[in-house]
């Protein structure tokens, strides 16, 4: 097991290297000059002399591979570079932005699981009942409704008309009342997918012979579903929920923009617009790291849920 984890961690290095190389190349392929963009004022002007000075100062006048190697060398020494925009270390804004995103992601994930697992189970054991049809319609709606629209509707109802929650903002360090609406927006759309998956996976499981056997033994339905069926039915749900969580951790640009939530998605898109190369690199590297780490955790989680995988890795380790 430990070997397996170690191997996965070692694999991180080439993945991150490749990610950084690809990002770096794409940044230089897309049109747009960071010096020009960053030095453009609210009026619209960018002083040509200032642009030239900026290029030299930031090393943008050097050949591409030199720029990359220089950046890589700095990163290996723990220096992720300085933002073109603020001229401050890029990690300074990334860490608080990631904290904000993490808060939102965890809240949406909890909400999503709280909705999807019970609703999915009930829909499965009550297949084609009214409750099943209702929840599946709800899930369809949740999948099809764009986040920005759902977010605006939630704001209209709960903030503008009812006044229960603030419209947007981060409040005192992302407090509960500011968290509710964006978490519902993100949570319900990921719940929609998970509910459907939970339902189909549960349906498949309860038709298996061992469930019949468990029922025949005279076990209560609660034990049959809750203990015997759920554990097996959860495996695909964990995969998708894990991926979903990794995705939520990348920050949702749309939701973060509508709710003025200072997360990493907003930071990343903002720096892409400004062609703030070091900041984009920093964000992407960070997000990639988180994504890979979440995947690793999901894989490890598997081995607890599914003994088959545990035995496979053991066998391979031998």
């Amino acid at each position, binding site marked *: 097991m430990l070997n397996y984890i170690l191997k996965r961690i070692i694999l991180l290095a080439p993945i991150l290297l490749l990610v950084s190389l690809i990002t770096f190349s794409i940044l230089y392929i897309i049109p*747009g000059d*960071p010096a020009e963009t960053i030095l453009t*004022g*609210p009026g619209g002007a960018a002083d040509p002399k200032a642009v030239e000075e900026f290029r030299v100062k930031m090393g943008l006048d050097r050949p591409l591979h030199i720029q990359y190697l220089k950046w890589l060398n700095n990163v290996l020494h723990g220096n992720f570079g300085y933002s073109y925009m603020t001229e401050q270390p890029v990690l300074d804004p990334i860490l608080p932005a990631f904290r904000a995103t993490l808060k939102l992601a965890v809240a949406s994930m909890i909400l999503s699981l709280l909705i999807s697992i019970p609703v999915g189970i009930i829909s499965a054991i009550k297949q084609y009942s009214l409750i099943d049809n209702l929840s599946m319609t709800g899930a369809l709606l949740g999948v099809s409704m764009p986040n920005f629209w759902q977010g605006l509707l939630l704001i209209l109802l709960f903030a503008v008309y009812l006044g*229960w929650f603030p419209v947007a903002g981060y409040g005192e360090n992302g407090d509960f*009342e500011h968290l509710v609406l964006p978490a519902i927006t993100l949570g319900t759309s990921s719940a929609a997918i998970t509910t459907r998956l939970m339902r189909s996976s549960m349906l498949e499981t309860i038709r298996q012979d061992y469930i019949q056997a468990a029922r025949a033994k005279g076990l209560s339905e*609660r034990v049959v579903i809750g203990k015997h069926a759920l554990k097996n039915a959860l495996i695909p749900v964990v995969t998708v929920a894990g991926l979903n969580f990794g995705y939520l951790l990348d920050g949702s640009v749309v939701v973060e923009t509508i709710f003025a939530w200072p997360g990493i998605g*907003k930071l990343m898109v903002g720096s892409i617009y400004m062609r703030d190369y070091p900041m984009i690199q920093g964000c992407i590297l960070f997000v990639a790291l988180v994504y890979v780490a979440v995947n690793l955790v999901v894989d490890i989680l598997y081995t607890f849920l599914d003994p088959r995988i545990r035995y496979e890795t053991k066998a391979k380790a031998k």
Partner: protein
Amino acid sequence: MKQTREKMKMRKGAASGMIAVLVGAMLLATATIPTASAKLYGDANGDGKINMIDTTYVKLIIVKEKPDNELADANQDGETDVGDVIWIKLIILEKAPFPGGTITAAMIFFKDSVDPAYKWTGWYVRKAGIYETLFKNDENMELTPELATGYRRVSSTKWRIYLREGVKFHDGTPFNADAVVYSINRVRDPSNSRHNEYDFIDAIYKSGDYTVTIITKEPYAPTIASLSDPVVSIVSPEADEEDLDTVAVGTGPFKLVEFEPGMSLSVERNDEYWGGQVKLESATFEYVSDPQTRAYMLEAGDVDIARGIPQAEAEIIDDNPNLNVINKETLRTYFMYVNTEKEPLDNVKVRQAINYAIDRDQIVETALEGVGGVAAKSVFPSIMPWSANDDLEGYPHNQAKALSLLAEAGITDTNGDGWLDYKGSTFELSIKTYTKRPELKPTAEVIEAQLEDIGVQASVEIRDTSALKAEVAAGDYDLALYAWGVAPTGDPDYFLSYHFHSTGKYAGWTKYSNPEVDRLIEEGRTTFDYDDRWEIYRKAQEQILEDSPEIFVFYLNELVGLTNEVQGYEIYPNEITFLTGEIYNTA
């Protein structure tokens, strides 16, 4: 039987779990919603103002001619009596603090610093009322002294600026010539990314405690106007320069309290403001990039003022009895660059034809919902004193004229397919634009339709700002719709030099060059008499309009939504000044 009960329980469990989460959320939310605090105590007659009429009103209350009310108790001692009459007089005499309350505003842009000398941060800290400049543009775009009291031009390159006495920075340091020299030199330092804009200065020195002399390298008429740019805000020389990113020490009506980069900024009243009583006690700015969200924040009562609300939402807000929308022309012109090197756009008649084909009123009515802007004539919005719009004819919507001009340039429908052709193939025009400003895309689409109306096959292409800039700079475009603040300091030289002088950077985008215009721009820059200068710029505006290297579409209106209780707010057309000592909140 047992089974179904189990199932029921489970279902109930799930349902009540969800309900518990929601109810819990609601309870927590209602418990912590902050409420607005202050009321306008002293406004006895409830007209939203505190003046001598209120003292009379309180006297009438005392003699029981009028019913007592809460606001009449100006000194807050629980009774309405002679003490309140005195207190109201003290407020009017600025001896007692004005009960102006607090304001929360939803703003558009944010910066990660509060140092005015850093890039364009000065705009944001000035909006918050923290920093001031030697001169400023008032709400009618008249250049007026702020921290200066006046100036005298000693020779064509030597300016003497007289400073206001008795002004103190927020840290108690006196404002004087040293502070001015220090602040301007911070921007002139080669490490400052905007130092080039102040390269016209040869030297700046103190010639008295309250007098500063500026020597320019060449005669430069915009000298005084350039001192109104917030980048040369006057900062306390005693403040540690390393800290100015996060600490603000200015002279403005408000002092910085807290600053959360990218999220919010709060200020409190400067009790020792040189400009007299500051009515508002404190203010908080929330930076929200989504316009719809800003409008909702206002509608939900989360903020008292929302800047830049969407045009489509303006009517809804205005219909709300508690809210208002105010609307004023800004110095932001929306225009199209024309690639004057590309055939057949190199022919001035084609450019003029496009001008005639555009129905600017229709753009304002449709793309801007009738409130978002004013049809443009020439480069400068009419609100700007340098605008010659009253003397210019412009291009009224005239399809027949457009078609005849195109025909003169050899663009006609030769193959009878309904589209105009040029040299044997269909005449196509693409309009490239970006989406950062919400007006751009709908405007481009309306222009597209108007061009198709006269038979020009037009298309709209959207790019992100950086990509578009690269394409346009490389000459890879026909028409490019852009938005510019044409005179941040109020002086016409800035925009004209950049866009229409043949050496100007953006003349490089259109490839425009007219020696006569070059001469006029150079002459205007070295002419000091206002009337002479105005006449030179009038000629330049006329010539540029005729040559049409850029097609002017509309001037943006700033739309600000506010509650009925916000008093004394004024829109500044240059989008630089926002919070002033005159604003207060009676809620």
